[in-house]
């Protein structure tokens, strides 16, 4: 009986099958299981070895976890603000001091945070524009169907792979060392990563472009650049735009954490409050960051949908 249920669960409705089918199925299943058993044992063994090694290497022993977990809750306890209902909307006193327990007290540095979040968004916009520009320029020679020559194809492909292969925070680290602490390092790092990530997507879009308009421009005597500008760009522009907007959303996240290595934005403040203070400031900044990212996502989604709607019309 239970086998019939399993059959129903995995293979769909076989309710009115003839009686013979049950035996045939049973036999088939037994064969399958026998041949798969070896594989299953091997997989399980491999899995167990991986698990054991991982636990050993990262010293993820139960006692460490047991002593660690309480500390996690302890820590989260310390970053919860001590708000009091009756004082919640209390302003500053005459000496300009905020009352403990009020929102004003919790967000003492509110305007500093706003300034940093503004900087974070600027960083994301600039990096996205720069990255999109370079990805756009290189994407045509990185498309197998459009590349003007073999070496241009090879070089632009490698440029894209390398610039998206290196994690942006590592790049930011290097840039911070080169040009000092500040948002410029973050912008450059994110722009380079964006070039690689978008470049790959753009060239895939290019490779799906219809060859007919391109042939049309070839036949009127257009140069390679004219073929791209007239034959390809009008076809791919809406997709490029969507991808760039999606990348912008990702870049807002990236620029909010890239400050961990000193590359500007709210991340720098986040790093500071988490690493050096164990108080409600951590939560204050975190809430703002999450809020910013969410709002940007919503706006960007609106723009993308509006744009696509208009295009289809």
């Amino acid at each position: 009986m239970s086998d019939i249920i399993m059959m129903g669960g995995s293979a769909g409705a076989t309710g009115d099958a003839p009686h013979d089918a049950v035996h045939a199925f049973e036999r088939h299943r037994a064969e399958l299981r026998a041949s798969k058993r070896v594989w299953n044992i091997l997989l399980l063994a491999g899995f167990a070895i991986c698990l054991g090694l991982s636990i050993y290497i990262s010293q993820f022993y139960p006692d460490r976890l047991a002593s660690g977990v309480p500390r996690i809750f302890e820590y989260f306890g310390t970053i919860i603000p001590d708000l009091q209902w009756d004082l919640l909307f209390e302003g500053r006193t005459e000496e300009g001091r905020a009352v403990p327990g009020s929102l004003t007290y919790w967000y003492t540095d509110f305007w500093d945070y706003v300034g940093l979040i503004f900087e974070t968004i600027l960083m994301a916009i600039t990096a996205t524009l720069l990255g999109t520009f370079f990805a756009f320029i290189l994407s045509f020679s990185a498309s197998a169907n459009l590349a003007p020559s073999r070496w241009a194809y090879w070089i632009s492909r490698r440029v894209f792979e390398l610039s998206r292969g290196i994690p942006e925070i590592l790049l930011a680290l290097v840039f911070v060392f080169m040009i000092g602490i500040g948002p410029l390092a973050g912008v450059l790092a994110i722009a380079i990563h964006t070039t690689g990530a978008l470049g790959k997507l753009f060239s895939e879009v290019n490779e799906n472009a219809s060859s007919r308009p391109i042939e049309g421009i070839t036949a009127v005597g257009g140069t390679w650049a004219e073929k791209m500008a007239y034959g390809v760009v009008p076809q791919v522009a809406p997709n490029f735009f969507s991808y760039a907007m999606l990348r912008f959303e990702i870049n807002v996240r990236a620029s909010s954490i890239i400050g961990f290595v000193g590359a500007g934005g709210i991340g720098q403040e986040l790093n500071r409050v988490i690493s050096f203070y164990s108080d409600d400031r951590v939560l204050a900044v975190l809430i703002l960051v999450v809020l910013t990212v969410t709002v940007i996502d919503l706006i960007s989604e609106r723009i993308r949908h509006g744009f696509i709607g208009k295009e289809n019309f």
Partner: protein
Amino acid sequence: MLKLEKLTRKFGENIAVGNATIEIPDGQMVGIIGRSGAGKSTLLRLLNRLIDPSEGQILFGDTDIAQLSGKELRAWRSDCAMIFQQFNLVGRLDVITNVLTGRLHTIPTWRSMAQVFTPRERAFAIQALDRLGMAHTALQKAETLSGGQQQRVAIARALAQEPKILLADEPIASLDPMNAKIVMDALRDINKQDGITVICNLHTLDTARQYCDRIIGMQDGRIVFDGTPDLLTTAMAREIYGAEAHEAFNEAATSTSIPAAQPVRELA
């Protein structure tokens, strides 16, 4: 005068066009017929150099077109306009910009990249469109037009090139008889009024007979017939078309002649 001298194109072992030798005087309207895969399309693409020849020469005046490259090649393509079975317009660009791409060869790079065209060029493009009765669609996106309309825009683009030769690769194969007639009339009009040589691949025999001064028949990459329409006997035509003869001779199916009053009984 366009002169093909032993022009050959191979794809691997397969000879698409073999030893084509033709002389086409200026101002002639030439129809190339043959079944699909006979090498008509390859021959036309060789003339525009969308495909490079394997051997042989294409002489226009004193220049060997087969040897051109770079800027000179683009200049030749601009002189030798081409229209395609699938129109090959840029669907997302508006009609007038599509026509203006015919001017690309004559304008400096910065202008073409920024899509800046002078009022004179725009007026010229509108006139070309107007000649095909399409000026009212100038600001529509090309992809919103019907097939016949797109082909007329493609012809306007060719006119904007101020070509010496107009190549047409199966220009009416994707069109209904009504639009096919409009397009073929336009091509003949361009040939007769402007004196532009028109070389046209046609699948159907009656269209070729009706419009062309001269018919070239191709079979398996070779030229098997070359002469005026009245020299093309039915037997010859059957030989050229082989197994596809029935389809090619079925005038009602794809031809440009529209039975005006009586219903199309042959189809039933």
